[in-house]
């Protein structure tokens, strides 16, 4: 159904119409939230909050790219969760790295246990590299290189100029490369030699 029609119906109190929008965008949004927060539970909480916020703020949507408008809410909500988590962070066991459930789901049956272990280590390393970045650089590189958004879309989502976005992405890529170089032993051979 037409997206504008769904939005109009949502504004008249049709929750079913809004949920069709949720179904359309929840996959993309969860990917961004997961990469920004690096935790499935936090990502789920942030995403649920984001959709509730989006529904409440729908009167403020003034047309244009709905996907960008929604993703801006998702990114900002993730920032809120990040800051909240930093405030609550303690040395408890809850903050210890946990196994990523989805990795098990995505296991390629043809790969050996050795390859499976290496893949998991690589993904954990890249995840750590992204998490080590400041918020704005993290958002820029996740949206561009992980999720594949265009520069213009990222500029819209982050409310920044396209030039600023490009600069952030360049810096973020450089920092991730430096992070991976320091842990080159965990990289696949094809990358290890070039990054060392």
């Amino acid at each position, binding site marked *: 159904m037409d997206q504008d029609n769904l939005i109009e119906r949502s*504004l*008249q*109190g049709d*929750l079913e119409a*809004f*949920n069709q929008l*949720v*179904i359309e965008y*929840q*996959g993309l*949004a*969860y*990917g961004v939230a*997961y*990469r920004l927060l690096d935790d*499935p539970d936090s990502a*789920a909480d942030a*995403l*649920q909050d984001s*959709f*509730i916020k989006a*529904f*409440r703020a729908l009167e403020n949507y003034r047309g244009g790219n709905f996907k960008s408008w929604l993703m801006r809410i998702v990114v900002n909500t993730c920032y809120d969760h990040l800051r909240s988590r930093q405030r609550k962070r303690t040395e408890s066991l809850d903050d210890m790295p946990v196994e990523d*459930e*989805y*990795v098990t*789901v*995505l296991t390629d049956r043809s790969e050996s246990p050795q390859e499976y272990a290496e893949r998991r280590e*690589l*993904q954990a390393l*890249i995840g750590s590299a992204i998490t080590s970045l400041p918020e704005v650089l993290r958002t820029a*590189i996740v949206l561009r*290189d*992980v999720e*594949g958004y265009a520069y213009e879309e990222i500029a819209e989502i982050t409310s920044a100029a396209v030039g600023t976005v*490009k*600069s952030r*992405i*360049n810096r973020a*890529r*450089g920092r*991730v*490369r430096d992070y*991976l*170089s320091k842990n080159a032993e965990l990289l696949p051979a094809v*990358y290890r030699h*070039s*990054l060392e």
Partner: protein
Amino acid sequence: MDPQNLNSVDEDLVAAYVDGDVTTEERQRVEAAMAASEQVAWEVNTLRQTVQLLQDMPSVPLPRSFTLTEDQVADVLQERRSLAKVEPPPPRQVDVSEDTVWQRLLRFLNGGDLALRNAAALAAVLLLLVFVAEFQLQRTQFGPPSGDSEQLSSAAPAPQAQVTAVGGSLSGQADSGAGSSQATAAEGSGQEDEEPVFGVMSTGEEEQRTAGSEQEPVAAAPVQPEKSSPAVESSRQQLTGSESAGPSGQPWVTVFRYARILLVLAVIVLWLLSRTRSGRGRA
């Protein structure tokens, strides 16, 4: 990185090259710089491989659906739904704006239970008939209008209205009128001047006491007839006439008076009942 190469290949161009978003000329520039400098080549290659690693990250499957429930946004839903219902359709708005006060009054009067409303209307018609009959009765009692009475038509209404509207005081008025006429007669003849004095005393007793003089009322009594105008004089004659016609018209006057009260009450009660019934019907 070689400063010369940095000048020719800046960060933005490297980023664009890594993204594959360069023109043929720009690509040749970057590749020339990479060939000239190992540092530039390392920079470009490592960035390209980093981007490749990031792009190879597996997509994340949804742990669950994030569709909203009514409870999560109940307040907003209620507000939006009520707003959507409250907004009247445009045609009705036009109708309301075109309504005149007269149309609204007619709609108000036409409302209510039909049978009771008709009964109220019937009572109103009967009330009108009673008024007409009463008027006719008074005309027959007072006789056909003469030239004098036509002259009185503007001045006489006061005593007549008192007679008709305050039916119970008809005899009293007649008495006082008779008293006045007697006073007028006494003025002329000089006999039986006690009766008019008593008549005045009964109404002006307090004034007499405050004045502290017993002579004044006696003196005041004859003053009134002197002041009376020809119209009042004629009304006295009429009242005297009605006194003479009283014994035959009195029962009818009483009947009409009660009929009038009953019919007024009937009109009010029936109309109110019709409105109440219609209100219950709508509820």
